[in-house]
């Protein structure tokens, strides 16, 4: 049960990563690998602040701001300095590795003793269930900390997804979406597409850094390596989410990304439980994304041969 709860909680935390990747990869069609650095950057900044005794909420805000700054730099490199999208991301990601080490001062910061979101979540759990001992859910022992954390993460993700969706309906948000959809058109309507892209990547990486900060606080440590493979992970979540909701409607796709992240984490937990070598995890994730990217094209050409031509979205 705690395995299931843990997978659910991490899935929810990483759905913030999925939302960030959705923003860069789907809204802008920008494969932004800055994500790998932003995850760690967010974790590092919040961990250092927590160890210094800052409030967990402030540490999360700082993490978001740090990620946003990293994303903005990638955006500036791409739009103003005309550096290729992937390369701009790689440059910032690489630079962030050193920055993260400087911020942390060492390669790993334990958070077990610090007052973090987990501590807050534990109090929340105790307040909700009116007890401090373990809960009994359907015959399973559940620690109050895990239950509280799950509820807290659900609230955070629901809030983040709602805010993002509302933002997409504002004048600024629609301009950002149009920038990804048809830059020529929105430029002709008076929008500086460079600014929109920088802003969009800042929001994207802010969310991703937030995911990193929450993940560090949940697992009890920040590690300089924790960002590796995160972009592909986020991508897998987005793709699963799209398959789940089967629609291009923004509200559904954003909800789908959250669901995709949770489902993917559960699948991984089950696979690990069944004896999948953890070392193979990233290989499997990469293969999965590869199959999801290539699959529709193969399916289409197969359908074409048999006379049908379904309309599918290309990646």
């Amino acid at each position, binding site marked *: 049960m705690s395995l299931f709860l843990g997978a659910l909680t991490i899935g929810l935390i990483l759905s913030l990563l999925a939302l960030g990747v959705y923003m860069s990869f789907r809204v802008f069609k920008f494969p932004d690998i800055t994500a790998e650095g932003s995850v760690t950057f967010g974790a590092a900044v919040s961990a250092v602040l927590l160890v210094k005794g800052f409030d967990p909420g402030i540490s999360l805000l700082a993490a978001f701001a740090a990620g946003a700054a990293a994303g903005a730099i990638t955006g500036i490199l791409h739009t103003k300095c005309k550096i290729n999208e992937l390369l701009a991301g790689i440059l910032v990601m690489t630079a962030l590795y050193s920055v993260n080490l400087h911020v942390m001062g060492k390669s790993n910061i334990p958070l077990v003793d610090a007052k973090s979101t987990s501590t807050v979540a534990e109090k929340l759990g105790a307040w909700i269930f009116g007890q401090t001992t373990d809960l009994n859910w359907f015959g399973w022992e559940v620690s109050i900390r895990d239950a509280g954390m799950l509820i807290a993460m659900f609230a955070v993700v629901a809030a983040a997804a709602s805010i993002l969706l509302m933002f997409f309906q504002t004048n600024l948000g629609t301009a950002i979406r149009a920038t990804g*959809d048809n830059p020529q058109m929105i430029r002709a309507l*008076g929008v500086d597409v460079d600014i929109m892209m920088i802003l969009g990547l800042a929001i994207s990486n802010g969310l991703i850094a937030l995911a990193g900060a929450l993940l560090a606080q949940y697992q009890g440590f920040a590690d300089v390596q924790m960002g590796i493979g995160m972009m592909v992970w986020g991508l897998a979540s987005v793709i699963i989410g799209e398959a789940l909701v089967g629609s291009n409607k923004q509200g559904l796709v954003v909800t789908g990304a959250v669901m995709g992240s949770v489902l993917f984490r559960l699948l991984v937990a089950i696979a690990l439980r069944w004896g999948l070598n953890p070392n193979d995890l990233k290989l499997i994730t990469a293969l999965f994304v590869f199959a999801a990217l290539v699959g529709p094209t193969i399916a289409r050409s197969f359908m074409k041969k048999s006379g049908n031509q379904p309309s599918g979205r290309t990646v």
Partner: protein
Amino acid sequence: MLEITNISKTFHAGSVNEVFALQNVSLTLNDGDFIVIIGTNGSGKSTLLNAVAGSFITDSGKINLSGHDITKWPEHKRASLIGRVFQNPFSGTAPTMTIAENLSLAAKRGKPRGFTWALDKQLQSELRDRIRTLNMGLEDRLGNAIGSLSGGQRQALTLLMASWLKPDLLLLDEHTAALDPKSADQVIRLTKEIIERDRLTTLMVTHSMPQAVHLGNRIIMMHKGQIIHDYKGATRQGVRSEDLLHRFEEVRRREQVDVRVAELLQRMYV
């Protein structure tokens, strides 16, 4: 009022592909003028439109619009004064966004965009009314993605978007060239309606001689980056398609003569 003074643009300057796209072009549009630009392929007519719209900065010369010197303004800044419809129906709209969202983007052309709702109640009702004037039945499909519409419908919407906030200048770049004849007719009728109703100052590029003759109050013929003929006032009144075609033929012949003379001179002296 639009004043173009001696603008020039050379693409790939100094290379073998050097193109003198615009050579000392000057043109003045008074408020309410509707100028149709015709010319052969590569004559620079679309380039002239792009120069005004700010797709690139000209090498020399000056562009003045409504009292602003916009010569060095970036494209998105000029958009506060200019409405634009492109040749490609896919260029003027955001395909995955809904009809209503696209129009809401146009309703903020050149204005600051903040955290207010893009589709407030007032805009929604105004939107429905104005789309109804297109007579395409689109007012009931405001929530549909624009990508699901035909080229003609998209071009009509782009036209509506470009003129939503009355622009100081409307640029139409062969906006019916990619449409089937029926849709093209429909869009041209709409173009005429909107321009006459709002008395928009307009620059329109076309390949169609009938369009050139039937629309606007002035015709400009371009060739090799220069304005070679300007039909206005009384001369504009009597112009027929045949006159324009005849004029094109003349230009072509003169060119052939030029080439032959050049060859002759080359044989004799080189």
